[in-house]
């Protein structure tokens, strides 16, 4: 009797168990778009005010899936794409008027109004959130329910950065966040700690599921923009899934296998996927350079450290670098020829680029010219070990050049820099510490040479790049933390020109100013670009979804469903 009972119990528990186990736990593959390359650690919070390093929804320039910005930037043509903001115009020298789309509403049905916009920007005035706009802004106020005015400080206006900011701040629902503020006693540290599970935004997706391995967003079926911006169409993908890979290799493998549909990871030799393996994979261009150049990772000098303080030494190094080798070996040919300018010869800022001046005064890979500068301009002589020595007995090196460990393409680039320099007789050694140490060295000026990108594409380019590379006002001494001008370059004339630029509206005058700045830059060369990189990498796999934008069908910029590339969500179709 006892035995029978035990058997019965076992059977019963098995049946109950399977019933429990039977619930659906897998996202249907054909309803989900898998993206990769934006998140490398567990999601920690959905609070856009936390500003932490690993928050999935916190980058208003990219992840406008849940919260939206007024506009988003299309680096291809240098123009804004309207989202919550319908249009903008300068009323006079100090006032920018933005119209808010009256059709916009949040997920909970509340309308997006001028009050929400004013509220969102003013948070940056109330708390240290990193919202820089308040350096230049006097006030933000509403005129009517759908019109907002940004008024700059008369003594410190900066229309470039204000224009930049209207594309770089999330509009949050005031009716929700004012409560969050009050509940946390208006204490920023407490507000930052608020986790914001199930964020209520105005965007086309909302959080469905988050874990340290995956983030899944679900389509908002009554998203206001479907009607107002996309002709009544809904995105075809019900889910957006972002698997969190531990390494680039893991992500690339998943992409190749079709487990990821679109990715912004650096994938070496991408063309082999379609040329050799016949996979349904594509990038923006189907030939070199495959991606659209948009930012310039550069080599920065510590310009106060002798003998790197001599512009001739810096120039000799710039002449010694084999740029095409960097492009070929480190960047898989994804970088076109680098030019001796802080102005990008592509996209919205190309109009300021002066090719003749670059040719006349710029540098390029030319080891003979590097040797000539060393011997004739500096009077250096080659020592027995093949390294040049200045007339005062200073040996050219060993200098170290550093960047974070594990950034494989950067590591390879710096190895080429070191080899190139040694070939002409300058001793450069590479050093790859862990990221926090490399960051710290860079910011405190504790380096000979370091590698970093002077700011991303934005409406404020190329001004912002000049500002970050050359501007010395407000940059503290070596030893203290600086977030720009890491080598502590100082040039009063350059400072003045940089101060002048954001007030100028005349295009011709603007071009002259940029040309002048670029000439100063070429003379003093406090840093120089090693490569051009895309804003985000962009490669798609058509196994499950088709309709991706590319150079032949350029309806959206090459960004994997982020920023202005979001547009693709409405063009994707399931592969048959």
């Amino acid at each position, binding site marked *: 009797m006892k035995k029978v009972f035990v058997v019965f119990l076992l059977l019963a528990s098995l049946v109950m168990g399977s019933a429990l186990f039977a619930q659906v736990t897998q996202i249907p593959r054909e309803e989900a778009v898998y993206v990769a390359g934006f998140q490398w650690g567990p999601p920690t919070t959905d609070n856009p005010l936390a500003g932490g*390093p690993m928050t999935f929804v916190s980058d208003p320039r990219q992840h406008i899936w849940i919260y939206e910005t007024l506009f988003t930037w299309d680096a291809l043509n240098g123009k804004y794409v309207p989202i919550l903001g319908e249009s903008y115009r300068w009323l006079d020298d100090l006032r920018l008027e933005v119209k808010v789309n009256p059709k916009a509403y949040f997920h909970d049905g509340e309308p997006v109004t001028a009050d929400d916009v004013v509220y969102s920007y003013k948070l940056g005035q109330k708390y240290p959130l990193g919202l820089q706009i308040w350096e230049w802004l006097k006030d933000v106020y509403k005129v009517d329910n759908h019109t907002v005015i940004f008024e700059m400080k008369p003594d410190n206006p900066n229309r470039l950065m204000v224009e930049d900011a209207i594309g770089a701040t999330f509009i949050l629902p005031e009716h929700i966040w004012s409560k969050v503020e009050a509940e946390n006693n208006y204490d920023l540290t407490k507000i930052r700690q608020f986790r914001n599970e199930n964020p209520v935004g105005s965007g086309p997706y909302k959080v469905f599921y988050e874990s340290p391995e995956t983030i899944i967003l679900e389509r908002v079926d009554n998203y206001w923009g479907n009607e107002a911006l996309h002709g009544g169409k809904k995105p075809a993908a019900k889910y957006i899934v972002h698997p969190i890979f531990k390494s680039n290799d893991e992500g690339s493998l998943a992409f190749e296998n079709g487990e990821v549909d679109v990715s912004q990871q650096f994938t070496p030799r991408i063309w082999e996927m379609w040329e050799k393996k016949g996979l349904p994979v594509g990038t923006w261009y189907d030939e070199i350079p495959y991606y659209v150049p948009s930012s310039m990772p550069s080599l920065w000098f510590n310009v106060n450290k002798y003998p790197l303080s001599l512009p001739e030494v810096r120039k000799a190094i710039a002449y010694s670098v084999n740029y095409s080798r960097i492009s070929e070996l480190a960047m898989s040919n994804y970088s076109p020829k680098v030019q001796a300018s802080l102005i990008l010869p592509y996209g919205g800022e190309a109009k300021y680029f002066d090719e003749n001046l670059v040719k006349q005064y710029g540098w390029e890979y030319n080891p003979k010219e590097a040797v000539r500068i060393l011997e004739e301009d500096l009077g250096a002589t080659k020592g027995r070990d093949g390294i040049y020595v200045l007339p005062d007995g200073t040996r050219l090196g060993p200098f170290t050049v550093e960047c974070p460990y594990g950034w494989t393409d950067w590591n390879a680039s710096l190895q080429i820099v070191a080899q190139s320099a040694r070939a002409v007789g300058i001793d450069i050694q590479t050093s790859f510490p862990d990221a926090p140490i490399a960051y710290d060295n860079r910011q405190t000026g504790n380096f000979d040479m370091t590698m970093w990108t002077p700011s991303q594409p934005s409406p404020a380019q190329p001004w912002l790049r000049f500002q970050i590379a050359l501007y010395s006002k407000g940059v503290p001494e070596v030893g203290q933390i600086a977030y720009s001008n890491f080598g502590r370059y100082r040039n009063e004339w350059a400072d003045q020109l940089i101060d002048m630029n954001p007030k100028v509206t005349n295009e011709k005058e603007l071009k002259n100013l940029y040309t002048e700045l670029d000439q100063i830059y070429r003379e003093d060369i406090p840093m120089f670009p090693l490569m051009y990189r895309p804003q985000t990498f962009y490669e798609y796999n058509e196994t499950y979804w088709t309709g991706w934008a590319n150079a032949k069908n350029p309806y959206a910029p090459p960004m994997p469903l982020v920023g202005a590339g979001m547009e693709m969500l409405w063009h994707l179709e399931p592969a048959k």
Partner: protein
Amino acid sequence: MKEFTRYFFQKFFWYLLAFFLALFLNFFLPRLIPGDPISVIVSKMMSGTVASETQERVYQSFVEEFGLDKPLPIQFFKYIGNVFRGDLGTSFSLYPLSVNEVLGNAIVWTISLQFPAIIVGWILGNLLGAAAAYRKGFFDKTIFPVALFVNSIPYYALAIILLYVFGVYLGWFPIGGGYSRTLLPSWSWAFVIDVLHHYFLPFISIVLVTIGGQAIGMREMSIYELNTDYVTYSKMLGIKDKKIQSYVFKNAVLPQITGLAISLGTMIGGALITEIVFGYPGVGTWLFNGIRQLDYPMIQGSTLIIAMMVLIANFILDMVYGLIDPRIKAAQTEEG
């Protein structure tokens, strides 16, 4: 019993002292790594912006939030106070997650991987080692060299070889993670099977090294015991081999139990390489990330857990020995 109470308190006092020393090191060692963790957080937030007061204000607000503006001794006492309240602080690199939360989830993965693996490896290793010693001949000639071989491969190399052969080359097992990213954790067969699928390689790697080490030790102890007088005497008395083997096993296994206790105590620290190689979401992974990201609270939290596990395991061991072996207790209390 009075003697044991004295022994207990004496030991307890020393372990308490060791615990405070560990707390001290946990706090100060991470701070010796060069670099400023706050500037890393702020630079990620402010990357690509112009030089300004805003950056300074943001920086200051984080420094205050983490209490890094206070002198080190005050930070230290605050840390001690929080530890005793069970609060390990807020992670820097995973801001605003708390270390409790991150490590709380991770430790489940670590223990469910390590504990069964160590136990299984220990049992198999001891059985094989004993068998090698008794049966000798062919059995001894194969098991012993294989065990020696497995044991002499550095663990990380063994793990990487397993991963390469069975994960990358043959493709039988996934190459990383605790479960597939396409699945949502739930009590479903699909998920359980998936977890086991991910579990297998790291599990077997630990079992293999544990078997190797245990088998060698057990074989040697057993051979030693087999040559003792009581075995010869028992044989002369005509006691059955099975019976003698059980005596030998009991005596030989005693030192092996010490080994087991130590491996259980150090399992979380030992998990580090397994978890890094197999991308397993446990404490070791977070310790490693914490070190690379200058995440003081995360480093402090993980090393504290490791130190406590080691101390507790050793303390229990000491107590057990004190109870079962009067010589140890006597010797220790006399010394102290």
